[in-house]
């Protein structure tokens, strides 16, 4: 009987403590409710998305990794796919415009940018309710909205019409039913999102000198908005904004062009928007794959430890585009010794690349090179995420936007003066161009060599309507009216229940 009683008591005891017994909080993961610094952490998480480079379906996708390199540089007449013939044929498809909607690099870009936009939306939602002071909140919102605008600007240039996603879906059902998530918004609508976000950022951010290094500041937002206006041919607005940036006194050209893309040139006086790198968890932290994919690759007789996969190799056409004496040529391109004298190529950190018979390609991107000698540049051995800062916007481009806008507004002399500032730094004589049309061409030409391998060329050709002509001249299989844009990834179309429409010709 006693046993019965004890058992009964035990059962009852279990029943009564059952409520707490089943309330087991999730282990090892903070929730949005339990993280005390949620909003500020989420803002850093938005910046973190700038470093994503998962090109093969990995979580987070690719914002500035191999897919970005392929869709901005390799696709253009500045660079070829490079590497070996058989490696990454899908990248070759981008190079030759034989790409299809199943291309994994294109899919990774879509994933990467929308992943980043979603992080921005999350952070903005958290900032609304965060208990931090209004000024900080305003500033952090400005930084996040800048990044969201930047992502949409890249998306609209890659894909044209894209879904307009400016809020966090409640759950999967919400994401799968709201037409905004399922259909593409017109290009104008997307540009409206971009300009609104940038205008907000300009109003809420401080000048560079009052901001922390690496953070988005007022000048960053003004420069990007000016560039957006350039794409919209809003010359007056572009001119005014670049004028503001120039007059702000926050920026100047660095004297030595070759330092721009080295560690010594990180966050220099010329830097406006620069993706940061550093260390985390006792390892290197930077854009996934950026340097490794573009590193010089062993070939032929081999016999040396190469630096990477050898993709995105400068074309002979780019090599020929530099005027004699232009210092930017040697700062942009690694020339592999093909003289037959076997002298090899000595890089700035002393590293010697053997001559052509041991190397896969003849040209490599110097701007993506990061020294593996820790005495020269920071390096902890993580090739996949080398500490390479990637410059997205810099002062030289502000001058070139200013020049182009001025020229279109009929202020040819102003345009020439801007242009010559850039040329002088490159150790070139003043431009000989005169007259609006000539100056326009000179500015476009200058953009190519000044910003070579800086992810601008293809967009610039499409913007200025020269893509078809230039690509065909470069021997590429470019179809006008089709290849200005990338195809919408087929998986995303399938997931939308075919409500996402495809770009023309794909």
């Amino acid at each position, binding site marked *: *009987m006693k*046993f*019965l009683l004890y*058992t009964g008591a035990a059962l009852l005891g*279990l*029943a009564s403590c059952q409520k707490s*017994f*089943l309330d*087991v909080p*999730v*282990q090892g*993961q*903070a*929730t949005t409710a339990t993280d005390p610094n949620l909003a500020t952490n*989420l803002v*850093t998480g*938005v*910046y*973190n998305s700038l470093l994503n480079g998962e090109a093969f379906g990995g*979580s987070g*996708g690719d914002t500035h990794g191999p897919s970005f390199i392929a869709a901005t540089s390799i696709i253009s007449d500045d660079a070829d796919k490079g590497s*070996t013939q*058989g490696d990454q*044929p*899908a990248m070759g498809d981008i190079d030759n415009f034989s790409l299809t*909607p*199943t291309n994994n690099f294109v899919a990774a870009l879509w*994933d990467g940018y*929308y*992943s980043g936009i*979603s992080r921005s*939306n999350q952070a903005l939602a958290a900032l609304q309710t965060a208990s931090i002071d209004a000024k900080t909140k305003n500033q952090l919102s400005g930084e996040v909205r800048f990044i969201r605008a930047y992502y949409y600007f890249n998306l609209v240039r890659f894909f044209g019409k894209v*879904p307009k*996603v400016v809020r*966090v879906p409640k759950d*999967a*059902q919400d*994401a*799968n039913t709201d037409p905004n998530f*399922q259909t593409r918004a017109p290009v104008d609508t997307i540009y409206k999102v971009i300009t609104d976000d940038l205008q907000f950022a300009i109003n809420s951010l401080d000048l560079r000198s009052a901001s922390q*290094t*690496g953070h988005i500041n007022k000048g960053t937002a003004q420069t990007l908005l000016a560039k957006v206006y350039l794409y919209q041919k809003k010359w007056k607005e572009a001119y005014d904004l670049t004028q503001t940036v120039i007059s702000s006194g926050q920026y100047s050209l660095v004297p030595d062009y070759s330092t721009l893309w080295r560690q010594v040139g990180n*966050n220099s006086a010329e830097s406006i928007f620069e993706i940061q*790198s*550093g*260390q985390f968890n*006792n*390892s290197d*932290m930077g854009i996934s794959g950026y340097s490794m994919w573009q590193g010089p690759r*062993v070939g032929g007789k081999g*016999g040396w*430890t*190469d630096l990477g996969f050898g993709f995105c190799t400068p074309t002979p056409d780019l090599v020929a585009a530099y005027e004699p004496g232009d210092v930017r040529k040697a700062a942009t391109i690694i020339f592999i010794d093909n003289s037959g004298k076997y002298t090899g190529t000595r890089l700035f950190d002393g590293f010697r690349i053997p001559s052509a018979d*041991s190397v896969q390609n003849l040209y490599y991107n110097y701007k993506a090179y990061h020294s593996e000698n820790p005495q020269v540049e*920071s390096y902890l*051995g993580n090739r996949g995420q080398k500490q390479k800062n990637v410059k997205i916007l810099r002062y030289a481009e502000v001058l070139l936007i200013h020049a182009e806008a001025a020229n279109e507004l009929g202020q040819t002399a102003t345009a020439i003066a801007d242009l010559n500032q850039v040329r002088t730094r490159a150790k070139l004589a003043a431009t000989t161009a005169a007259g609006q049309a000539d100056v326009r061409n000179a500015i476009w030409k200058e953009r190519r060599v000044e910003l070579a391998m800086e992810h601008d060329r293809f967009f610039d050709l499409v913007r200025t309507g020269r893509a078809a002509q230039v690509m065909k001249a470069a021997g590429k299989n470019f179809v006008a009216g089709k290849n200005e844009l990338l195809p919408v990834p*087929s*998986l*995303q179309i399938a*997931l939308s229940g075919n409500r996402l429409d495809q770009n023309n010709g794909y």
Partner: protein
Amino acid sequence: MNQMYPLTRSVSRKLSLLLLLTLLFHLAQAADITVTGIVRDASSGDPAIGVTVKVKGTSTGTITGTDGRFSLRAPDNGTLVFSSIGYESVEVPVNGQTSLTVSIKPSAQELAQVVVVGYGTQRKVDVTGATVTIKGEDLFKQPVMTATQAMQGKVAGVQIISSGQPGSSPVIRVRGTGTALAGTAALFVVDGVLTDDIANINTADIVNVDVLKDASATAIYGSRGANGVVIITTKKGAAGKMSINYTVNAGVRSAANLVKMANAAEYANYVSAASGNLVQPGTVSTDWYGQILRQGFQQNHNLSISGGSEKGTYFLSLGYLTDQGIVIDNQYKRLTLRSNNEYKLSEKLKAGVTASYSNGDNQIANLGSAYNNAYRAAPIIPAKVGGRYGNTSVYQNVGNAVLDIENNNNNVKDNRLQGAAYLEYKPVTWLTFRSSMGADWINTNGRVYNYKFENDTVTFLSPGGNQRNPNSNLSFKNEKTLHWTWDNTVTFNRTFGRHTITALAGTTAEQFTYTWFTAFRKDVPAAPNLWYIGTGNANTSTNDGNGDKWSRNSYIGRLNYNYDDTYLLTATLRADGSSRFPKNNRWGYFPSVGVGWVISNENFLKGQNLFQTLKLRASWGRVGNDRIPSDAFTVTVTPNLAYPFGGGIATPGSAVTQIKDPNLKWETTEETDFAVEFSALKGRLTGEIGYYNKKASDLLINVKVPSVSGDGDGVVLTNAASIRNQGLEVMLNWRGKITEDLSYRIGGNLTLNKNSVIGLNGGQPILDGGIGAAQQYTTRTDNGQPVGSFYVLKVLGVFQTDDEVAAYKNAQGTVIQPSASAGSFKYQDTNGDGKIDDNDRVFAGAYQPKAYFGVNGGITYKSFDLSFDIYGNVGNQVYNGKKAFRQAVTDNVERSMAYGRWTPGSGIQNEPAANAGNLPASTYYLESGSFVRLNNVTLGYALPETVLKRLGISTIRVFATLQNIYTNKKYSGFTSELPGDPTKSGIELNAYPTTKTIAFGLNLGF
């Protein structure tokens, strides 16, 4: 009851006294002699195992061993009683004989055997659900590691898919794929302890395995019942003489099937044609698979000691198993110890402990990249010469597969304690209280060391390439799991006239905790005695860790009603509360009801001789599945998404990268089951034929969401789909005797199953089975199709000429494949839009077989015994994913592709011209998964008694066994038995090749 208690105590005291007096009387009267002998099954002539042998009127006794033999001390004028479940008892007077041969007859109702049904036992005849019992000895005779694998082909409705990897646990699928989530594993209950994996259980220790298949049988396990329940009962000692048993088997394993790759000349020919550049075959021709595969040695030793007295019994066992596996550098070792004890504390109170310890040591071969690279690597590169490796990566950007395996040392050791202690109290004969506390504690230590090597001539025959590791590194992973269960039940069992009622009520509580951490450093020296974190470069330290915890609380009830052994009713109800669901959906209720009609006990069938037993049964039940991650409904923040503002040490950040469904609810499966069971022709023919209809709804599946949703991995867990499995199961067994010395048995089972998704509940079809290269997905789980159906382009043939390419147009006259040329595949333009893309994909079959079957049989002739079993399945498709690895022109090809390739004028339609790979997902990669294989053949010989007597040993049996020795399959890859998650199964990517084994063994009993 208060009155009854002292009464029974006084009665029992008197009884004990009486017993003692009787014993003393016997000791004074008679001389004990040793009696040995063998017990045989009267119908088959097989040795009868586990038969209790007792000296009548005493508690002295023993049980027969695996050879049917026994030995005990008995008075020379005594009587021995032989009894066993399912057999009629036999009494044999000793009459001074020291050697006896005894035949025992199966009882008229073979179905009267007792089966384990979860929180109790039932007579088989009373069971109204679908359950099957397999004897441990039938499993143990196979040279495989787990009982699960040994069950393959033995039970209708239970599909077991196993890889050849040492130390791995097979996938078990009861009555088709009933869920789309990762939690598809059946529940294992080992002596009352709930677990997901039985890799720690020594098959030699198992008495019986009971498989509960339908929802009415598994409903007592509620939310764990949806995928079937496998109940394992381990051995106990029997009162009587100590018995010692030793069994060993040892043998060699090798790959059951190999894929023939092109040799150097064939490769050179193919690649020259594909690339247009002449490739020279050179002087070497490497068989890369041959380089990484080998014959492996395996052995298994088991020693057990058991016995006991009236006060208690014991069973102790020691098992040691090693399996080298068939991949170089691979080895698995397992040591198991078991101690099962039972104590009779008083007439009313019983206590017991079942405890097992296992120690696994798994030296893992890095098959992931090696397998892929062995497929792709050019045969013109040598594998390894004089300790230096052929440099494949400098030639073709593919790693050297041998180096992939040899450049690291990956070892996982686990220690596992599993057991239960119980107390059982019977205040009166018809009432039993039982409290059982079980625990499963696992501690796993993984260690991976990656050697430093450069792409120089120290490591390679020629320098360069991408395969190198400039810094050695060492990582550790420690995992600890504790899962405890506490069951409290009360069972009532009484007969009133023709009515028998058994009722059970109880509660259970469970908690699971899991923690892990990792540590990592670089620059650890290569000597194994220095493989500790402290020897590495502290500047490179990283670590990580996390954990999991969930709990479950349940109430259970069961009622069995039997009227005159003819009309049966079973009803169960379980209420489960789980911490894995949000508060509003936390409790699930899982009822079941079953009825049975034993027609053979009806008067109108009395007097007929055809059927000894004939029973109809029908049941319905509802079960659930809560095997989802504990964080599935809570939105959590992913930490450590840092950003290095201004360089230097990065600032930590975070993001919400996973969308969650805040209203997750229980996944429920409802199943109806009808069956007829019979035993006919004097018990020689037994069988069971059943039909089931199982509908799973509110299935938790990971639904893909568009990238615009911002979900990091693109999938969200939600209650979206419904799946139906309908099927027919047939099991038939025949046993017969030709002469006194020659008997035989033959049995078979067949399962027909139809799986289909019957609703997506507004969700998206699931696209899965991505392979990489150009094949982002290969399966689609959609309405009306089986789960994980292949969804690919349809190959219509090969363009024979460029004119055919130009002539292949849609209705509007658009050339469909303008970039194709003669020798390219011609794909079906399903939607007729004039181009080939994902919209042209078609459903092309699924990995789930339409039918699977087993055949088993045996012959016993005098002291020889021979048994065999066959297993197979038909009607499924498998995807040759490794063929899709081929993504560069320099990659190797299969020999059949080298010879079967299209050439102008060949007319070949099923293989394209030499190409660079990277082809889209299509029917080209799909092949029939049908196969039949000879799973096991065992020949044994037991030494005759006359010899044994001289040696003073009770058993010596030698045997030879062949496992998986012959396969007839259509598939061209290694194996068509491919485990995998429900929405991406049946794809051969880097599967460990299945093995065949030849082993010899010895069994000694004392």
